[in-house]
């Protein structure tokens, strides 16, 4: 595990615009509006100018919202902002997009600015699931677009998959997964549908899928992806060897990162901060909404709750080097090793793989 060094950082940039709003989404987003986008990108430039301290940037992630909802001109402006960073050692540059937005011109711009990884929200190919989520995509179109992406030299592709939608059966999931695995992809992020307040489904008081079905689907996904050659490296993330998301691992390694844009969060110089979720405040230049100075104890707590999300767990030696204290002396680990809920393997402390889906219960005994 790499230890944070001051001159190597990661960057997240949030683009809060979408062409249509999915029924389950509680992220920071608004419907695309040209005037706002132009103003927004200008403010984004201001925020980067204000905050960026000149470190080498090793990963960039542009997420949303839907970053691919921007016009080509706006997109070029946005990507041009990333030239403000020292990108000499850039290892991974991810751009989130919707499959229907992808075309040759757009890909050419992405490649020009160094984007080398695409994360695409497919979620499902099942018609009923798509209607419920108010999304749209076909297997055939997806396959064509993925081939186009690869032909442009972007060979690191993630697809998102959502399961356990209300009424979804294991049979539907199996069909979905079968189609996903026929596609030329390297990474899958998969989430059971959470019905949150302040979403369309939340307002409609739609009930979540029962716990037992949800867990059964998760088990199936883990088993099936493993068989297909994917490594289960985080609670919800699976990758072909070498294709683990370097940017997301920054979060789970508890390392620092910049967050730019409306609704973004960051962790800089020992402070975790949240930007405003209000677009109008952001456009007025009021970027930050709250921050938390992280004490050493809190930092170790974050290390624990984030690190145990990784199937490989937390390297005990690294923990000692970072905090100068043995992890066993900070958290009551012993009884959980005894009960088999935690295990130590190759110098790493991790959650027993069969308990990963109830990991909060284990964390509650530790913090």
């Amino acid at each position, binding site marked *: 595990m790499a230890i944070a060094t001051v001159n190597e950082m990661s960057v997240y940039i949030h683009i809060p615009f979408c062409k249509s709003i999915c029924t389950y989404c509680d992220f920071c987003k608004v419907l695309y509006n040209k005037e706002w986008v132009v103003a927004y990108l200008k403010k984004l430039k201001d925020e980067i100018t204000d905050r960026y301290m000149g470190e080498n940037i090793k990963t960039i992630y542009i997420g949303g919202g839907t970053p691919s909802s921007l016009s080509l001109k706006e997109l070029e402006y946005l990507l041009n902002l990333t030239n403000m960073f020292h990108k000499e050692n850039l290892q991974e540059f991810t751009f989130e997009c919707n499959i229907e937005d992808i075309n040759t011109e757009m890909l050419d711009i992405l490649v020009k600015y160094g984007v080398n990884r695409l994360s695409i929200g497919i979620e499902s190919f099942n018609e009923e699931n798509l209607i419920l989520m108010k999304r749209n995509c076909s297997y055939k179109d997806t396959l064509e677009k993925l081939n186009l992406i690869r032909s442009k030299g972007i060979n690191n592709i993630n697809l998102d998959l959502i399961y356990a939608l209300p009424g979804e059966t294991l049979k539907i999931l199996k069909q979905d997964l079968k189609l996903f695995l026929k596609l030329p992809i390297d990474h899958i992020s998969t989430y059971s549908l959470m019905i949150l307040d302040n979403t369309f489904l939340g307002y409609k008081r739609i009930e979540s899928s029962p716990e037992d079905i949800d867990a059964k689907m998760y088990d199936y996904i883990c088993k099936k992806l493993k068989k297909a050659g994917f490594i289960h490296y985080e609670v919800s993330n699976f990758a072909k060897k070498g294709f683990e998301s370097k940017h997301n691992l920054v979060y789970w390694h508890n390392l620092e990162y910049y967050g730019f844009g409306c609704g973004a*969060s960051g962790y800089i110089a020992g402070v975790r901060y949240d930007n405003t979720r209000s677009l109008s405040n952001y456009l007025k230049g009021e970027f930050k909404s709250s921050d938390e100075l992280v004490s050493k104890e809190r930092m170790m707590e974050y290390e624990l709750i*984030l690190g145990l999300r990784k199937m490989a767990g937390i390297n005990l030696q690294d923990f000692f080097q970072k905090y100068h204290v043995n992890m066993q002396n900070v958290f009551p680990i012993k009884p959980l090793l005894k009960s088999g809920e935690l295990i130590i393997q190759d110098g790493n402390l991790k959650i027993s793989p069969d308990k990963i889906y109830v990991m909060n219960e284990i964390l509650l005994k530790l913090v």
Partner: protein
Amino acid sequence: MQEKNIRNFSIIAHIDHGKSTLADRILELTGAVSKREMKEQLLDSMDIERERGITIKLNTVKLKYQYQNKEYILNLIDTPGHVDFSYEVSRSLAACEGAILIVDAAQGIEAQTLANLYLAMAQDLKIIPVINKIDLPNADIPKVTKELHDILGFKEEEIILCSGKTGEGVKELLDAIVERIPAPQVNLDKPTRALIYDSYFDSYKGVVLLIKVVDGKIKIKDKIKMLATNKVFEVTELGVKTPKEELLNTLESGEVGFLAGAIKDISSVHVGDTITVLDNPATEPLAGYAKMKPMVYSGIYPVEASKYDLLKEALNKLKLNDASLTFESVTSEALGFGFHTGFLGLLHSEIITTRLEREFNLDIVVTSPTVVYNAYLTDGSMVVVDNPSKMPDREKILKIEEPFIYTNIIAPASYVGSIMELCQNKRGLYKTIDYINDTRVNIHYEIPLSEVVYDFYDKLKSRTNGYASFDYELIGYKESDLVKMDILLNGEKVDALSLIIHKDFAYNKGKYITEKLKKVIPRQMFQVSIQAAIGSKIIARENISAMRKNVLAKCYGGDITRKRKLLEAQKEGKKRMKMVGRVEVPAEAFLSILGSDE
């Protein structure tokens, strides 16, 4: 002060017959509070009293009233209306010479009207019958007048018609108080004796006593002695409530008021005790009043073991102005150290537990209430069982007796069938029905107390659309075919969930409890079995499947602080759970043996 110008009185009524509203009007008319200061139901000072519209604690106010150009002091001593609190009623009545009996003009006589009236008559109080709420469109004054005459023997001309809402008749009532209620007997020359009829704890003044001076007088700086505990204190403060506090230098024979004396030790004060003055002490205590025995018992345990001492302190403070509350320390295998607590009834228990939670900010586990059983053993001895875990083994028991009550259920005659059915379901033995008039009856049953402590009153209300009223008296012990039922979690008996039940009801109850626990206990990391057993025989079983999911699926840059806060919230939730073996059980589960699927 001229003693004959004092009148000490209470107001007694069935719940909801408008006692507190009428008291408010009296306060207004005597100028004790101005309209501007008027808060609805001024006498009910506890939040819980205003919320539930009931009076629990006594309050006393001193009022001034001009009658025929003379000033009179009227001491209004408030009383609770609920059946659980008849003990409190008798305490307040002990400080009075008269009582106003309120009957609702639309409802007529109800069960607690009778119960409270009998208490007042037992103390030889002068009763002023009042028909209240005469402004109601459905008021039936002739009918209620006839009831008061036929059932209670009042003369028509004695009855005062009144409306707490409009104030009509309130002046006539105040005149009647002066005219009819005798002044307290004044014995200024005798050695001082004062009755403690209530007390409460004030963090600045210490224990504050509410007293009625019967003989002699008490002055500031007097050394006083408690006759029962022999403890001596110096009087630092005397006064009355008007309802604001008004400080005085003396309280004399015939007067009521409060007394403070830097009394820090709660145990040195017993409500019902007599105070005398050390200079010229009396030796004979005043006649107290029958101490009420607790009718039901529950275990109260702190969720966190370290809060045991705080819980003890809180119970001591509550006991100070609630002499009917009893408690002793107890250990449960499942729940650790706690208190075996005696209550007058279920409402009383609810109020105490709510006050512990709200006023003392304690997280507590309350076990289901149980009555006191007598178990007669084959060796000729008898065991008092006030906690199911004390029940001896079945093979040693010759017979078990349980307390029975005799009911007054007053209701419209059209509900007789439904009420009788309810009473039969509760193992009631039919005795008789009295006709109050053509349309209303008083139904008498003998019912085991254990069957009425929980939901009998609620069921009665729902079966009669709220028209029935209920009161009871304890008539003694009778033999019943009872068994002890245990509840097991993952094969381990949970002593705090054991209960004693009639054999014929055991199967249904076992099924009900296991199903209910399945709903109340959250999933754990492992499967949990819930069993109901009589002796070694399992009569019902449910399983709670192991937890399958508790994870935040998405955790990226923006979710991290939220994730930590979510865990904090979950941890807070767990704090309210009690570990029983390896199983986390929420506090409310321990009350789940209440109720039935009827």
